[in-house]
Each structure stands twice: as structure tokens, then as C-alpha cells.
């Protein structure tokens, strides 16, 4: 078969579809977004009409995937690393109820924080939940591992985590496809207790989960994705995990280092394999992308083995992304890894697009706050999305960004403490994701605050996906209990500036929950929509 050029995300998506997946459940988040976007356009997925629409958030996505697994069908849930925090409850418990049809939980980490609010290593979650984790090192493995993951998942009746990182998700390479597998037939669980976590059952399930750990470890020992490459120079052995394997190979090939290499791509840690490897080498270098999971496990709390080098002993930086230069330095082949950019080069941070509706919303908000607080004393709680860029000059419009949905609840806490005026600024997709429950808290407590839901009719930050609450924002707010007359829809355009300022002022002065919805489409989404309209017309 001819190779196809695919991003790591796309290779995994195609792999899952080809392995008979019946439904993908996801909420967008860099670098995982392209998985669902690919499935939505994939001819085979369309032909089979597998489930491929966005979920409200990662928790609902994982739960829906568990439901599909319940019916015996193969499924995949996808998210970025912080999305797994949102989905942590169903994720952890899905290890107890297990899987009926194969369930892949795909989590794309973002070491180096290219587009994220933190750096966390999802392998810890897989270990925490005591389920197998696969960590592909290249695009072909992304594809092949989808098949392998479904086999593992159905063999052990457990969800399997697929861990990707930015550089793999967003890097393209040739991928060879296999014969497509049929979808599973509908086959409901034979054991009526399987998906029931009443404590009496849960206790039994936990014992079972513990009991099968040796089998999961044995599967990792025999995994086609874990192997040892022997080398003559046994003064050092390199344990190269997932993506980091590429950097190791790059450097050892270039500098002709002949160290033994253990490639790790399937967990739980294959302890027997590792022990044998460690016994055969003098020193051990652990190269892993993300946090030092393997290194920490090998060292233990009271290190008895000080032959181990990695992120913990300063051989590598504790934070940040791996790269070939860092590996070359660790192997003593190169000196500094500090990149010195010529002085004339200025930074070019991302910014709100010209014509972005958020700009007009912020201008009005900045103006109205002048009549309530002194310059520099204003505090606005905000959230995650394009509008977070409103923190930067020239807007300086917001003060916080914690996690999706936190604008409303943080503002609530501040209002409860007596802060006035209290403003929360949240995006429409973010509101759908996890703003609604916070709003209900405010209604329950009759909190005095103003919530501004920036309705640009899209999930802008991640490239313009649609979202579940689209077209229903007022209805949702009314349904949750906001008084109709305190739901104010405005048009963020400069010619409405005065009017918008006046409306904001009224709502700040109202003692209770107000919702202001500035509504104007994201200019990028609009351009894309117009282009596809034109294309359709041309047809």
C-alpha cells in the first residue's frame, strides 16, 4: 500500500477507524483537536457513519465512550492533557468497571506548554488508574497502536490510554495502512454487575484490578512496541520512552554511539525487562518526554541506585520539552543547549485578530469600569480562549485564567467575599464546557455579579469548532434561573460602543446575577464559513 502523509493525530484517527471504531467522543484542545477533525472528514468514517460530533466537555466525552464500550462497540475518547483533569472521575472509575467493547482514552500532552496553561504527564494518570498505557514514538506507531490498543482493551476488559505529545500530534510522516476491520456487533455485558460501582461491587473490582497487574506487566514485557537494541558499549544503557526514542536514535546514529537502548512504549513498566537491562549496563540514562515517571520509579523514594541519570539529577532540565540537542549534551557530544537569537529579533506574541469581536467587548468593559474603580484597581475574572489574550496590552482587560469555567466560580467566590463590582468574562464554548454549573451556583446564592459570555459562535482558540451550546445561550441562562430582563444581548461593534457601555453599567448596578452576551461571529470562522459556502455554490 502507498504511504499516506499524516499527522500523528491523523494517523491515530485513521488507525482507530480502520480498527473498527464505532464512535469518537471529544472536546477540542491543542494538540488533540485534529483527531476528531480528521475523523469528521475521513471517508471511511463517513461511510460507516461512526459517531464523530463534539461533546460538551471531556467528562461527557469519556462517559459517552464508556457507554459505547458498554454496548460492545469499539470507541475512543480524546482530549488534551488538562482535559483529563476534567474527565478524571469517569476515567478513574472506568478502570473499575472496565471495558466491554475496546475503549481507547487518547490524551495529548503539551510539554513545553506551546498552547496550554500547564505541563502535566498523563502517564501518571494511567498508572494512577492502573490501566495499560501506550506511548507511540512515531506516526506509524500511532496508527498501528490503535489496533494493538483495542486488542489489549478487549483482552483485559480495561480502557487503554494512548499518550501523545505536541511534537508527535502535529508532525507529519508517511504511514502505511492495513486492511480495515469490521465494527463489533452490539453485544451487551454478560455480567449484570460489570458496570455497577456500589461499594460491595467496587471493592471486588478493585481487588480484580490489583490481581491482573502482573498480567498487564507481562503484556508490556512481550509488547511488540517495547524492545532492546543491544550495543557494545555497556558503560551506559539508555531507556528511551515514546517520542524521546527518536531523539535518542537521532543522536546515537549521528555520533555513532553504540550504547544499548531499551525502547519503552507500553506500560505498566515491564520490570523484568528493565531489571535485566539495568544489570547489563554500568549507568542508565532515562530519556522521557514530560515528567520523570520512569526515572522516579526506578530510583524509588530512597535512592539506592545512583547510577540513574535523567531529569531528577539535573542531566536534563526538570521541565520543558526534550529535543535532540538536550540528548546530545546528556551523552557528552555537544555543549550548550541554550538558543541565542540575534538581538535585532523582537518577540511576536500571538494577538487577537484584527476585527475580532472580543476587542470591542473589552473596550466597552474597560470604559464602564472607569466609573466604578480607579485605574489599576480593576479586577476581572476570566477564562481560557482567544479572549485570554485580552490580558495583554493594549487591552489589559482581565486578571485571571485558571481553568475552563473558573471565571464564573472565581468571581462568585470574590463576590461572596464582598468584592464589587464583580465581573466574569467567559467564552461561549467555555460556558458550554463548564460555565453552566457555576452559573447555577450563582443563581442559588443570588450572587451579585455580571457574567459576560462572549458569543463569537465558535470555539475560536482551537481553530473554530462548533460547540454544543451554540444558539442556546439565552435559553440555557433562562433555564438555569437568570431573570429574563437581566440577560442582555449586545453587538460588539464600535458604533454600538456607547450603548454597550450603558448596558454594562446598568447590569453592574443591578444587585443580582446579570448575563451580558456580546454576539458577533469570530472573523476567522466567518471567513472559513464564507469560503466553504462559495465552494458549495460552485458545485
Amino acid at each position, binding site marked *: 500500500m502507498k*504511504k499516506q*502523509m499524516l*499527522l500523528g493525530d491523523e494517523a491515530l484517527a485513521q488507525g482507530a477507524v480502520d480498527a473498527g471504531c464505532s464512535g469518537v467522543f471529544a472536546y477540542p484542545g*491543542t*494538540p488533540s*483537536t*485534529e483527531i476528531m477533525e480528521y475523523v469528521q472528514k475521513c471517508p471511511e468514517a463517513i461511510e460507516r457513519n461512526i459517531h464523530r460530533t463534539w461533546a460538551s466537555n471531556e467528562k461527557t466525552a469519556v462517559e459517552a465512550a464508556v457507554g459505547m464500550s458498554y454496548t460492545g462497540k469499539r470507541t475512543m475518547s480524546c482530549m488534551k492533557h488538562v482535559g483529563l483533569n476534567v474527565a478524571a472521575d469517569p476515567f478513574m472509575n472506568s478502570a473499575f468497571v472496565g471495558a466491554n467493547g475496546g475503549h481507547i482514552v487518547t490524551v495529548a500532552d503539551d510539554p513545553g506548554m*506551546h*498552547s496550554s496553561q500547564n505541563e502535566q504527564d498523563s502517564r501518571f494518570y494511567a498508572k494512577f488508574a492502573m490501566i495499560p498505557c501506550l506511548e507511540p514514538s512515531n506516526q506509524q506507531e500511532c496508527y498501528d497502536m490503535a489496533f494493538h490498543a483495542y486488542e489489549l482493551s478487549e483482552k483485559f476488559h480495561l480502557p487503554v490510554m494512548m499518550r501523545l505529545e505536541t*511534537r*508527535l500530534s*502535529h*508532525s*507529519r*510522516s*508517511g504511514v502505511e495502512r492495513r486492511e480495515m476491520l469490521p465494527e463489533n456487533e452490539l453485544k451487551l455485558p454478560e455480567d449484570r454487575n460489570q458496570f455497577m460501582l456500589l461499594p460491595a461491587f467496587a471493592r471486588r473490582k478493585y481487588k480484580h484490578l490489583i490481581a491482573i497487574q502482573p498480567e498487564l506487566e507481562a503484556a508490556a514485557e512481550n509488547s511488540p512496541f517495547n524492545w532492546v537494541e543491544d550495543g557494545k558499549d555497556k558503560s551506559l544503557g539508555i531507556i528511551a520512552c515514546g*517520542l524521546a*526514542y*527518536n*531523539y535518542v*536514535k*537521532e543522536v546515537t*546514529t549521528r555520533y555513532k554511539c553504540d550504547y544499548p537502548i531499551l525502547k519503552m512504549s507500553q506500560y505498566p513498566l515491564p520490570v523484568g525487562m528493565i531489571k535485566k537491562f539495568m544489570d547489563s549496563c554500568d549507568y542508565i540514562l532515562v530519556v522521557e518526554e514530560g515528567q520523570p515517571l520512569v526515572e522516579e520509579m526506578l530510583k524509588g523514594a530512597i535512592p539506592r541506585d545512583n547510577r540513574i541519570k535523567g531529569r531528577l539529577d539535573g542531566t536534563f532540565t526538570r521541565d520543558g520539552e526534550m*529535543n*535532540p*540537542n538536550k540528548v*546530545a549534551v546528556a551523552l557528552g557530544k555537544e555543549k550548550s*543547549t541554550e*538558543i*541565542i*537569537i*540575534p538581538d*535585532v*529579533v*523582537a*518577540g*511576536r*506574541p*500571538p*494577538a*487577537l*485578530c484584527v476585527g475580532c469581536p472580543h476587542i470591542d467587548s473589552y473596550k466597552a468593559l474597560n470604559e464602564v469600569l472607569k466609573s466604578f474603580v480607579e485605574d489599576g484597581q480593576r479586577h476581572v475574572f476570566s477564562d481560557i480562549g*482567544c479572549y485570554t*489574550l485580552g490580558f495583554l496590552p493594549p487591552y489589559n482587560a482581565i486578571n485571571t485564567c485558571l481553568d475552563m469555567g473558573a471565571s464564573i466560580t472565581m468571581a462568585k467566590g470574590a463576590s461572596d467575599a464582598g468584592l464589587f463590582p464583580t465581573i466574569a468574562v467567559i467564552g461561549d464554548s467555555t460556558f458550554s464546557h463548564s460555565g453552566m454549573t457555576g452559573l447555577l451556583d450563582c443563581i442559588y446564592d443570588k450572587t451579585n455579579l455580571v457574567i459576560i459570555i462572549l458569543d463569537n459562535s465558535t470555539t475560536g*482558540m*482551537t*481553530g473554530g469548532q462548533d460547540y454544543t451550546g451554540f444558539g442556546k445561550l439565552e435559553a440555557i441562562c433562562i433555564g438555569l434561573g437568570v431573570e429574563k430582563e437581566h440577560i442582555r444581548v449586545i453587538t460588539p461593534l464600535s458604533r454600538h460602543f456607547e450603548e454597550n457601555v450603558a448596558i454594562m453599567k446598568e447590569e453592574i448596578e443591578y444587585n443580582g446575577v446579570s448575563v451580558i452576551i456580546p454576539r458577533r461571529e469570530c472573523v476567522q470562522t466567518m471567513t472559513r464559513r464564507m469560503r466553504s459556502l462559495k465552494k458549495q455554490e460552485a458545485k
Partner: protein
Amino acid sequence: MKQDIILAGVGGQGILTIAAIIGQAAIDNGLNMKQAEVHGMSQRGGDVQSHLRISDMDIHSDLIAEGDCDMILSVEPMEALRYKPYLSVEGWLITNKKPFINIPNYPDMEALENEIRSLPRQVLLDADQIAKDLGNVRAMNIVMLGAASKYLKIPYESFEVALEKVFGRKGAAVVEMNINALAAGKAFSEK
């Protein structure tokens, strides 16, 4: 044979199209390739880059190592210099002269040009102007590819074929315009 290329520019300037065309041409020539892109936050008017690696042998790393890059191909002059630490001693820096100014502290053009000209191997051209003269300023990225083609280890004709594959859906006129843009860029380098 191996060639490590960093494509540079500002979000929206079309570097991923250049990557797609070089990638297509590489594959048509039976070469291996890996290409790391930037998605997400950095696309919103920020700096973007793509690491493109082609080789007749296995390629391991998706990222090009510092000091290893054979060519920086940039559609914006300041962005070209951002990746200077990656350039190998014998590497080429090929860049568009036309600045994209969306920041208040954009450096002095003369200082930028001096820094670029201080490199032993560089090509500096006003690809915006060349594309404009051809009737479509949006073909600027293809003009840049044409200028780089002389130094790429892939036969020129392969880029023409790749252009047809990538732009074919948009009609013959678009393909032709881009083939002309490619030729104009090439002509500049060969002057």
C-alpha cells in the same frame, strides 16, 4: 542525501503550503520525510515555523537540531533570523524582504538586512513585489519556494508536478499562476 529545512513566517502567511509542496515533491522522488508544524495559540498573528526533514535514509527526530539546519526558508525577514541558531555553518538563509509589521517594536529594516547579509550564504528578495507583478500577491510563498528551489536537492520539475497536485482542485488558472510564481522565484536566484 539529507536536507533539513526550517520554514518560517507569521501565522497565515502560507508556510504550510510550502511545506506541503516540498513534502509532496520529496515523496514523489521516493524520499522519506518528516514535518513538524505549529498549531494552536501561535497561529494568531504570532511567529510560526515548521521543521521539514527529507532524506533517503530513515529520519528519526521530528525536530531539527540546533546547528544542523541546511536551509532557513522564510517569508518574512525578521522571522528568518529567529531561527539563525539552527543554521549550520554551510546552511542557506533564503528570505522574503517584505516585513510583516504587527508589533510596535519591529526592528529597523537596515539593521535586519545587515544581520542577514552578514551570513555567508543568503538570498534576499522582495517576493511580495514579484508576486504582485505577476498579478497575485498571495503567490508570494510560491515565489519564495522558487527562489529556494535552486538549493533544494529535489529536481525542479517535481515542484511543478507537486503544485499541480496541491492546487489542482482550484482549477488550471490557479495552477498556472503558481507555476509562473515558482519560475519567477527561480529566475531571481539564478540571476
